[in-house]
């Protein structure tokens, strides 16, 4: 029987890994992720979870252990934040290039210098192009549900999945979470079947040096060049959109919680002003929307669940009637604008939608961003957008210049 327990986001993540019966865990402590691996250590040392726990000396090694353990057929889990994730960068590419279904929680935190232990999403956004699927959660329920779905998605697509959620805002905040029972998770998640199985019996050299061009193997079979390998990864991530949706639907059937879309909507049916964002900032925007609606402003929220693969069509569909767009995000692509904003604009290119768009850079390094401030920002933007010169702007919210 499913049970509702009040817990932090990090506990939810650890319980999810346990429910998925991960076989190898390798992680290195970093705030605000640490309590996930502390909880998993408890599970493993008490015998509640039968898994190998490799207490590595760095995040680079944590991801490496996940890569090689996955190559010999083990289901693996790790989690990290901020500099830990950046330190893994090389291995993130390696995991994706090896097409391994590694699942990792990224508890989003700002990146130094200077040091910040507080939340923003610069860390995971900076890993956008590593070939990982990136899913963002808006509350602790989504964390447990997304980790469980992540294994299904990863093991079907053969691509690693990063489950991202906001440090402290979710990781250390208690919320009621409905925990699915073991039988439900078992029926949802079949055992991991590796695509390339490295074993002592079969001589294979995995991930060797590859030429630009295609080459024949000793049996005359034409094998990929580097470019073909990369195309297959791109194809897999494009295909992952459908997989995420179908996995979400099956999960919804078992739990009654809706994951049938790559994004989620709040009061969008008649909305003319659409706010978008990922993670808890989008949740905060729903409160702002309620305030705006009290004043008769038809606002709604489109929250992005899947950032990679980017839900191009779903976004086009969800935003098609917008008269104004507000993109809220906790990251910045220095020298341009927010990364999500660029992607949304790219998705809308050629659709004929030419609504004014204001990009709000918010909450960097844990700077508080309240619903009231989002509400005020939207009001200011709507006034501003009346001017032809202010159709497209990047604004730093709660930041003195």
């Amino acid at each position, binding site marked *: 029987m499913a049970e509702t327990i009040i817990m932090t986001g990090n506990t939810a993540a650890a319980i999810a890994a346990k429910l998925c019966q991960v076989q190898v865990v390798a992680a290195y402590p970093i705030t605000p992720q640490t309590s996930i691996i502390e909880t998993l250590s408890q599970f493993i040392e008490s015998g509640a979870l039968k898994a190998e726990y490799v207490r590595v000396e760095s995040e680079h090694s944590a991801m490496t252990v996940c890569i090689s353990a996955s190559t010999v057929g083990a289901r693996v889990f790790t989690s990290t934040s901020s500099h830990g994730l950046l330190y893994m960068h090389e291995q993130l590419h390696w995991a994706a*290039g*090896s*097409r391994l279904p590694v699942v990792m929680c990224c508890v989003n935190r700002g990146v130094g210098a200077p040091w910040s232990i507080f939340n923003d999403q610069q860390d995971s956004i900076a890993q956008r192009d590593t070939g990982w699927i990136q899913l963002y959660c808006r509350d602790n329920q989504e964390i447990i549900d997304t980790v469980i779905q992540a294994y299904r998605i990863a093991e079907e697509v*053969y691509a690693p999945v990063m489950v991202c959620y906001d440090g402290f805002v979710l990781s250390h905040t208690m919320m009621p979470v409905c925990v699915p029972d073991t039988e439900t998770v078992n029926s949802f998640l079949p055992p991991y079947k590796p*695509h*390339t199985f490295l074993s002592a019996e079969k*001589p*294979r*050299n*995995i*991930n*060797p040096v*590859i030429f630009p061009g295609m080459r024949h*193997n*000793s*049996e*005359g*079979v*034409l*094998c*990929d060049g580097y470019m073909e*390998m990369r195309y*297959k*990864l791109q194809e*897999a991530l494009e295909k992952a959109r459908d997989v995420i949706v179908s996995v979400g639907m099956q999960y919804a059937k078992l739990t009654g919680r809706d994951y049938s879309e790559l994004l989620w909507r709040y009061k969008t049916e008649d909305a003319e002003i659409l706010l978008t964002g990922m993670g808890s900032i989008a949740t905060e925007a729903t409160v702002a929307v309620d305030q705006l609606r009290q004043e008769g402003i038809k606002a709604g929220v489109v929250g992005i669940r899947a950032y990679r693969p980017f839900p191009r069509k779903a976004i086009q569909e969800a935003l098609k009637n917008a008269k104004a767009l507000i993109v809220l995000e906790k990251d910045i692509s220095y020298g341009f604008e927010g990364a999500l904003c660029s992607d949304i604009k790219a998705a809308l290119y050629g659709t004929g939608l030419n609504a004014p768009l204001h990009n709000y850079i918010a909450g960097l390094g844990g700077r508080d961003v309240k619903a009231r401030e989002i509400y005020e920002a939207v009001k200011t933007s709507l006034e501003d957008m009346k001017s032809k010169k202010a159709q497209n702007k990047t604004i730093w919210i709660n930041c003195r210049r």
Partner: protein
Amino acid sequence: MEKRDKNISAMSTPAIGEAGKTGDWRDMKPVIDHSKCIPSVKKRAACYLCWLYCPEGVIKTGIPVEIDMDYCKGCGVCAEECPAKAITMINEGDDNG
């Protein structure tokens, strides 16, 4: 249609001659004088230091000792290590040796 590999990640399988016929790399080649070579002289399995020290593993123990010239890179270690001085390195093309 040509058979295409279906693997989604790069996975090599073993075969001889991955770098081609590496015998082509030689500028000098080893020639064994079997009248000096210990196994041939003693008419029994013996010595085989050329086999032991060959970095390529292209020397066959037996009577007589044989070198796989398709893949011998011509490094000359066997000639240096032969205790009977039975192996000499000669220029490729000088086949009177």
